């Protein structure tokens, strides 16, 4: 088995999701190569070399690879995929964007968002917002896989001493160009990997009142999340959305505050170790999956909670 893992990064540092993808690769078993496709991403290469279990890092450096455009990344991966038995990447926005393009170019079927490796060709993936788990066996000669990061514990950041090899990039795709990026700046930990997540929903009521969620998160050193309703209403930015079509999180403690808990939201947080729900509606579905629930007005409970912490 020889496994290629496509690194996710911003040219400055390796995204933690790549360490979880490496854990899935380790479960499949075999020689692991990481591809760092970017521009002036030397620091990322160094991190990838040090990651546990990596034997080689392929480095493709080109201005056309700087912004993660799917057309360019996929062209590069298509060139080398047949040298490997598996190609893995995180089921993040980055991975979801380019991997199906690789699959179609190779006339293969991708296995999306795996949560378990059964054997080298058989994987478990959630369907219907995680309300069912499907086990599939891939018959393609190269297994193209995106990995749900929260389902695999990250490998160690250190311990590896992989060699590097330059990989030439061909022509940039003519029809697509990067224009700009508007990154949400937050002093809070990253939502996808935080130990504690504090999420607010429609019940918070307004963007101004959403500061109560931010304040509790700050007190707990937690990341801020939100339900789709809260994001649609403009209380929180889109990258905070937890759910079937947003981010999937599995922290040690998940606070669902003013969130009713539609199945689409549960899909993004039901694997959390402890779920705390605060909602004044005692029939809110969130209470069915909460370990600890408080039926009360969040504007009474949250300040009390902050005082006790």
């Amino acid at each position, binding site marked *: 088995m020889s496994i290629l893992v496509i690194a996710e990064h911003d040219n400055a540092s390796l995204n933690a999701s790549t360490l979880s993808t490496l854990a899935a690769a380790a479960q499949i078993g075999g020689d692991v190569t990481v591809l760092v496709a970017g521009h002036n991403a030397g620091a990322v290469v160094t991190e990838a070399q040090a990651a546990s279990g990596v034997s080689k890092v392929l480095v493709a450096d080109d201005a056309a690879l700087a912004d993660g*455009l*799917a*057309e360019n990344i996929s062209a590069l991966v298509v060139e080398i995929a047949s040298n490997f038995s598996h190609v893995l990447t995180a089921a*993040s*926005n980055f991975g*979801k*964007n380019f991997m*199906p*393009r*690789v*699959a*179609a170019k190779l*006339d*293969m*079927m*991708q*296995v*999306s968002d795996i949560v378990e490796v*059964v054997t080298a060709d058989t994987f478990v993936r*959630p*369907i*219907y917002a*995680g309300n*069912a*788990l*499907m*086990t*599939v*066996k*891939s018959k*393609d000669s190269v297994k193209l896989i995106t990995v749900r990061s929260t389902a695999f514990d990250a490998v160690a950041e250190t311990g590896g001493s992989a060699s590097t090899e330059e990989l030439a990039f061909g022509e940039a795709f003519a*029809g*697509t*160009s*990067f*224009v*700009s*990026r508007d*990154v*949400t700046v937050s002093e809070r930990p990253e939502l996808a990997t935080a130990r504690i997540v504090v999420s607010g929903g429609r019940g918070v009521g307004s963007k101004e009142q959403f500061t109560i969620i931010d304040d509790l998160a700050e007190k707990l050193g937690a990341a801020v999340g939100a339900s*789709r309703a809260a*994001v649609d209403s403009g209380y929180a930015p*889109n*990258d905070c959305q937890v759910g079937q*079509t947003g981010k999937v999180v599995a922290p040690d*403690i998940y606070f669902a505050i003013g969130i009713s808990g539609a199945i689409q939201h549960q899909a993004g947080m*039901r694997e959390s170790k*402890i*779920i*705390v729900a605060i909602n004044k509606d005692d029939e809110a579905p969130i*209470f069915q*999956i909460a*370990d*600890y*629930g*408080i*039926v009360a007005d969040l504007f009474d*409970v949250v300040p*009390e*909670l902050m005082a006790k912490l």
Partner: protein
Amino acid sequence: MKVLVAVKRVVDYNVRIRVKSDGSGVDTDNVVMSMNPFDENGLEEALRMKQAGIATEVIAVSVGGEKSQDTLRSALAMGADRAILIKADEAPEPLGIAKLLAKIVEQEDPQVAILGKQAIDDDSNQTGQMLAALLDWPQGTFASNAEFDGDAINLTRETDAGLETIKINLPAVITTDLRLNDPRLPKLPDIMKAKKKPIDIVEASSFGIDLSPRLEVVGVAAPAEREPGIIVADAAELVEKLKEAGAL
């Protein structure tokens, strides 16, 4: 320009699905079905393009069984000009669907194909990107805004870190995120009118594409239930419980 919009008939998003006891799949008998929510956003965007004078014709296409005609009727009621059903009794995988849609693109020559970013049944999030790959078109995925500028689109995408804008030249594939627009509700006269609009039906097998699955479904299981929790009186008791559990 013509715009092609792919729509899928799926179990309605409000339905709590049940896994079949024999582990062969999910029970879809006698449950409410509707158009995949992301596809409604796709159709709405195409209709707005027509209202803005950018699009001349909006064609809805679906791959599925006979009953997918219901979904296409909904699309016609929202305002699509005509519809195409690619009839396939066994639902093809995303790769097969992308190949079928590529054939329709060849026939119809649209400048834009709009798809939902994912279907809420199999959650694959693949078909749009695959269609773009097969056509060698640019892809603007997870779109929350699309501004047409001559023969290009300035497209804003929702990413894990925030928002990103890319410029993609036509022809192109767009996949939608939920914040792209608010899909309209069809009015009764439109629903009546939709009954007279044409739906072309073509057999998936007529395209000469190998649609046999590449992924063998070994089984489908329900996820583990969470242990029932408790209701606590107040913040003080909550903190106490969290400390007992070693979480704080």
